[in-house]
Structures are given as C-alpha cells and as structure tokens.
C-alpha cells in the first residue's frame, strides 16, 4: 500500500451518528407537543430499515457487518418517520420504509449510488398511494379535543381501534399548511386565518417549535462540518425570497416568509433532507443552485399545487438535476485559467 499512511479518525458511521444526534432535540419537542406515538413510528421505521437493509445486503452479497452499522439506513428511517403523521398506522411506516430502503436505495446501487433521496421516495410513494392516512396529523396536545394515552396510541397504530367514544377527528386535525390552503379557498384573508388557534407566532402551534429544533440541530451539523452552509442557506433563502416577494405584493393571500420557513418540512428539509450528500451536488455552486431549486419548487407546490407540502417533491425533482449541476459548476482548478476549463461540458 502506498501513501498516505495516516487517516483522520472519522467514518461514515460517525457522520451518520451525528445526524441522528442532531435530530434528537426535534424529536424531544415532537414528543412534548404531539405525544410519544412518534417514538413508536421511529422504532418501527428503524427496525424495518435494518431488516430490509440486511436482506438486501445478503441478496447483493455485501458484507452485512460493515454496512448494517454504517447508520445510513437508520437516518433514512428516522427522516421518513419524522415526515409521516405521528399517529400513522404501523403498515404506513413499514411499507414506506421498506420501499425507501429496498427500491430507492438498494435497487439504485445501495449506499452512495442512489440518485433519489430514499426517505423522500418513501414519503412520495405513500402520499400518492395512501393520501388519506398520510394527511391525518395528530393535533397538538394543547388543541386536541381529546387525549389518547400511550396504550391507546399503540392500539390505534397497530389495530386501528380508537376508544369507543372517540372519532378520529377528535385526535387529529389538518396541518397548518392544509388549514391555510383550505381557509384561503374559503376566501378568508391571511390575517383572519392566522388568528385561528392552530397558529402560533411563527407557524403552527407545536410544529413551529419542532422546526426551531430542526434549525438548532442543523446548526450543530454545520459547526460539526457534517454539512456545509450552501444547501440550507440557498433553500431557505430562495423559499423566503419567493414568499417575501408574493407576500409583499398581496399580503392577504400569500403567507409571510417566516411562516413558510417554520411550517411543514422546510426546516427538516433544508438541514437534514436536501443535505443528504449522496443525492446532492458536490460543488459549492451546484449546491447553491440545488438548494435554491428546492426552495422555489417547495413554495410553488405548496402555494399552487395539490399536495400538502412541497419539500419531498422539490427534493426529488432537484435530485434529477444533480449530475447536470455537478458537471456545469466545476470550480476552477489551481493554476488553470478561468476560460480554459471545458471540463464537464458534453463533447
């Protein structure tokens, strides 16, 4: 073996562990506002992911020991579980995770080779196939008409049975983004809508705190140099810019940039999903374009499209552009003239 003979004591495993660690504050906030059911979803997704990962590694003749502990499957599982409704029936989580790991990850070549973000593929497949359970979000504890005990949570998730006197509507409600959309359709103005009890200062009650925790975790990843600033800044910046422009033109119909940033999947998307290195560009300029593209697409899908949130589809659409972005945004190599670089251009 030739040089170098020393390597930094780091590993894929360590990177993934830091990502998981950065998610912990948000999970804590989640439990506080929406109850412990999310923990069950996270566990279910993790177990499913590991089982699917192990099976696929065996089928593909990969050494299971090194890859199973690399942590990437757990990261996918957690991101997917956190994107799904917290009171999701068990099969929703299991099928989504299995699809993410088996199809989106391993059938595309496994760790490092997949073109699309596995968690977002899992989410997209579920929202297209099972739109109804995917939009039944647990209401924040402070707003719900009734409370479920943890045992009742489990009964609902695994058997689909609610206590006799309760209907699903009593424990779930529309998400802030859904509420906004519906109310706008009912010709209410934004200032009226924002007075509804579901909304807080930034976004939805509860979910705004979770979003703040994602931001906190994201900053930790930035300082740990697990991610670079380019994608989160570009995505949040583009989202805020488009939202700000339209909000400036018509404040009654278009939500403020702050609202757009702290509702839905914007924060987890900017710091945890869009920054997945495998499915994002590697060049600094490419990352900026990629992030900006997701920001604009997210806004457009939220505001003009038919889905409750636009992050997943924004990410998936921009995933497709990654090879192109990388090829066209190659930085100038040391000692090369600016114009000289024809690299990456199709021949």
């Amino acid at each position, binding site marked *: *073996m*030739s*040089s*170098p*003979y*020393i*390597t*930094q004591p*780091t*590993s*894929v495993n*360590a*990177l993934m562990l830091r990502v998981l660690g950065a998610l912990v504050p948000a999970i804590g906030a989640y439990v506080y506002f929406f109850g412990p059911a999310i923990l069950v979803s996270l566990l279910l997704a993790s177990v499913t992911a590991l089982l699917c990962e192990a099976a696929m590694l065996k089928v593909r003749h990969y050494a299971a020991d*090194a*890859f199973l502990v*690399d942590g*990437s499957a757990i990261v996918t599982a957690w991101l997917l579980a956190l994107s799904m409704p917290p009171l999701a029936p068990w099969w929703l989580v299991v099928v989504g995770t299995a699809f993410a790991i088996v199809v989106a990850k391993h059938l595309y070549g*496994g*760790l*490092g*080779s997949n073109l699309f973000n596995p968690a977002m593929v899992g989410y997209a497949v579920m929202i297209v196939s099972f739109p109804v359970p995917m939009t039944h979000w647990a209401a924040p504890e402070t707003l719900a008409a009734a409370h479920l005990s943890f045992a009742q949570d489990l009964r609902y998730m695994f058997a689909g049975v609610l206590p006799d006197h309760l209907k699903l509507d009593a424990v779930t409600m529309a998400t802030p983004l859904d509420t906004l959309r519906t109310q706008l359709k009912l010709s209410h103005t934004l200032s009226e809508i924002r007075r509804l009890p579901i909304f807080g200062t930034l976004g939805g009650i509860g979910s705004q705190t979770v979003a703040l925790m994602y931001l906190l975790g994201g900053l930790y990843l930035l300082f740990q*140099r697990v991610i*670079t600033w380019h994608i989160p800044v570009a995505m949040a910046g583009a989202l805020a810019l488009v939202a700000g422009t339209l909000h400036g033109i018509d404040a009654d119909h278009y939500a403020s940039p702050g609202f757009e940033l702290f509702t839905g999947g914007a924060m987890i998307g900017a710091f945890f999903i869009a920054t997945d*290195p*495998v499915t*994002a560009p*590697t*060049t600094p300029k490419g990352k900026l374009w990629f992030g900006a593209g997701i920001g604009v697409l997210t806004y457009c899908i939220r505001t003009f499209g038919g889905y409750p949130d636009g992050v997943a589809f924004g990410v998936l659409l921009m995933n497709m552009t990654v090879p192109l972005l*990388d090829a066209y945004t*190659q*930085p*100038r*190599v*040391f*000692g*090369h*003239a600016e114009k000289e670089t*024809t*690299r*990456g251009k199709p021949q």
Partner: protein
Amino acid sequence: MRPLFRFNGGIHPPQHKSESAGQGIVPGPLPKRLVLPLHQHIGAPAKAIVKPGDRVLKGQMIGQPQGPISAAVHAPTSGTIHAVGLHALPHPSGLQDLCIELWPDQEDRWIDRQPIEYREKDPTRVLDHLRSAGVVGLGGAVFPSAVKLNPGPPGRVPTLIINGAECEPWITCDDALMRERSGEIVEGILIMRHLLDAQEILIGIEDNKPEAAAAMRRAAAASPFPMEVVVVPTVYPTGGAKQLTQILTGKEAPSSGRSSDIGVACFNVATAYTVHRAVNHGEPVLSRVVTVTGNVRQARNFDALIGTLLPDLVALAQPKDDTDGFIMGGPLMGHRLPALDVPVVKAMNCLIATSPALFKPAPRPMPCIRCGRCAAACPVKLQPQDLHWFAKASNFGKAQEYALFDCIECGCCSYVCPSHIPLVQYFRHAKGEIWAREREKKAADTARERHTFREDRLEREKKERAERLAQKAAAATAQAAGDGAAAQSKEDALRAAIERAKAKKAEIVPRNTENLPPSTLSEIEKIEARRAQLREAAATKSLDQKED
C-alpha cells in the same frame, strides 16, 4: 505584516514534530561500506568515472554528470572503490540501479577543496561549479539546482522564495538545519539571489517552528541584502512549492508551466545550505540531515553521509522491538521501504519507523457517499469524488478532463475521507494507466505512419515508372510520325500514351505475391489467365450487344 494568501483546503494532521525536534544535529555513522547510486536526481544518471580498486579522497567526483540535466556524485569519505554494480535503491518497488560501492579507509582525508568567489565569476562558471558539486533540490524533488538557477533573460525571476515550511508530520530535518546553521543558509541564499538577480527574498516557515524562525530572522538581519522571514500558518501541504508561492505572493503557477513563469524561484533551505558549502567552501554534497523518528527510542536528526546503508543509520536511533517497517519521507507523501538494505540518498529527508500501534492499518473502505470533504481539502481544487468515480470505471478520458494530472498526490483527500477510500492510490493507478496507454498509442502511431509511408512510396514509384514508360512510348511514336508531323498528332500520341499508361497502371494492382512458393505462383498465374479470358469474353459479348 505581509498580507498572506491561502490555498484551498489543506489538513491539520497530528504533528509529531516534538519527538525529534530540538535535539540538535547528530553526526551520522562512518560505516564500513557506502553504496552511492549514480542516479539520485532528476535527469540523466551520472556516469561512473572510477573502477574497482581505485583509491578516492573525500569529496572526489566519482560520477560525472551527463547531459544538460544531471548532477555529479562524490565520494563522501576517503577509501577504496570496491565495486560498480547493481544495488537496491530506496524505491517503493525495491528497484535496483547502478551504484558505486565505497569501502571507507576511516581516515576521512579531503581532496583539495576549491571555493570560488561567486561575485567575480561569470554566472555560468558558478552554475558549472554547482553542477559538478552535485547540488540538487533537497526538499524531495532532487532537481539539479544549476538548471533552476540559470537566470535566463534578466529580470525574469524577481522573487526568490526559500522553503522552510516543512509541513509533513514527523519530519524536522529542515527545522534542525535552520536552528543550527541559519547563517550558512543565508550565505547560500545570497549566492542564489546573485545568480537569479532576484529583487525580493522571502523565507517561508510554518508557525510550529518558532525557534527556527527566530534563528533565521537573526541571520537575515545580518544579511547585506534584505530578506524577509515570513511565518505562515501550519497547514499541510504548505511546503509544496506552488502552495508556498501562493501563500506568500498570491500568485498561482500555471498548471502546465513552472514557477519561473510567474517570476518566482523556490528552493528548500537545505539546498541553500549546500549551495553555500559548495561555493564558499568547495565542498560538494556529501551528506544530508535525515530525521530518524517514529517507533524509536532516540528520535534524532543525523547528518548522514550519502550512501550510508540504512541499518547503520537506523541503529543509532534504537528502533523499538515491535517495529514492522520504515517509511521514507513523511506519512502523507512518503513511501514504505520494501527492504532496509538501501542507502541514504539526497532525496531522503526522513525515516519513520512504523509499528502496528503507531500506524494503524486503514479501515476497510466503504462506498463514496459524495460528502465532498475531499474536494474541500484539495489544495489544487480538484473534485476527488468525481475523479475516483472515473478512475474506478476506467473512464480515463473523463478523468483527464477533470484535471487528473494536476493532482499533486499530497494525500489530503485520502486523509479526510470518512469512507477511507484510498483515493491517491486510485489516482496514481489512473495516471499509470494513462501513461501506459499513451506509450502504446505512440508505438501504434509510429507503426501506422511507417506503414503508410511505405505504401505511399510504392505507389509513387509505380506511378513514376509508368510515366517514364509513357514518355518513352510517346517519344517513339513522335519519332515514327516523323519530324514533319503536326503538333496535333504529337499531342494525340501523347494523350494516347498517357491513356495506355493509365490503363497499364490500372492493371498493376498490388499483389502480395512476393515470397511465395513456386507452386502457389503458378496457381496464381493460372487464375490470372482465367480472369483474362473472362475479361476477353466479356469484352466480346459487350461488343456483340452493341451490334444488336
């Protein structure tokens, strides 16, 4: 304060300098046997000018430089030439090359040393002197200094940079030299400045060597020509000539060119020292400071004679029992020595004894997750993650397009890779493959060229012969037509002759009928006859048809 610039990325590996630094330079051994390779520098190998049995004095030239880029080899001590033959070199493959074996007589008797007064001499005389003193770049590239110090047009190299960065972990030989011999280094720098007619002298030293920087500052203050000691941040690979140039001047040496293209010449401090010894004392390069460190009890800097066999040198540092090998150079760009029975050469700045505990084997590589840390660390701003992909897929064209050959193999990318992918090895392999293919292609091109040339020649000869015949025939016809024949008829005849020649030429098709056995030849003849018959029959037939 001079404004400093920075290159992209770089890394901060554990330094491990304290093991060997600050202990002073210790004289190396005077062993019973010295092995002196004739090719210790870039360029043509030196030619042995001694034969077994010859007695030589310390400092006597035993290998003469050959060709424009070469350097001499000298006897590092007095003794008898024992043999001129093949011996293993300190090379990653254990390569053997021509060496002169010298058995010292332990008397260490000098040859008559002849210093020169460089200010009064013609620069080419000084350069010749350096060339025959065997002065080469001691930073590791071992490029003959005389070539690099050749000034060219006046004012071409206004900036002289002296490299005391010593950025690789473990190595402290330049540090030791600067601490102890700063005055002599400055003398050497003055000679270099004189030869290049440089206007500005910058001495770059990383900030992890404050003692060396202080010593150099003191020496520089006493210099008649102003020179500036610039302390630069400790980032690997600051010691790369192009990187240090960028830090100090902000200028980037062009990818395909040299530092002199941007008016900069860069020399290692140890080179400056040997220039001083050669010019002011008439002493050729006979020894160099070698750091022996790592898994040893007494890490030291030794002033080792060139040609000292490593077991003799290493023994002084007392390697520990679990030592499992040696790295020549630093841990990032050096290479493991397949065997220890090799000599100290001019390029050897450091020997690191390794043990499994000190240099843990790299963990098993995982797939690339495109995290981009390699690109962030690359001082040349390459995209190692893309290059790795192309190299792995043997897509060498694409790798070249992505500037594979700008890679300086510093090892930063491999060092930071969380998947522990041996990126530099991939790049070395890809470069080797491309070189091999280039050679093959060149050979094929030459063969093809030769073949087409031969074909063309045969064709031309055939044509010329046909034309000659035609002219002769035309002349004969003209003769027959008589002198009084009209120009018209002459022209007709000429045309007819050309027609005939053309027809004949058409008939002469290349047949590979040379070198065939007679039986085959007769068979070919028969076939030809049959063909002729057929042609005749066809001609008659077509005539018949016309008549119809």
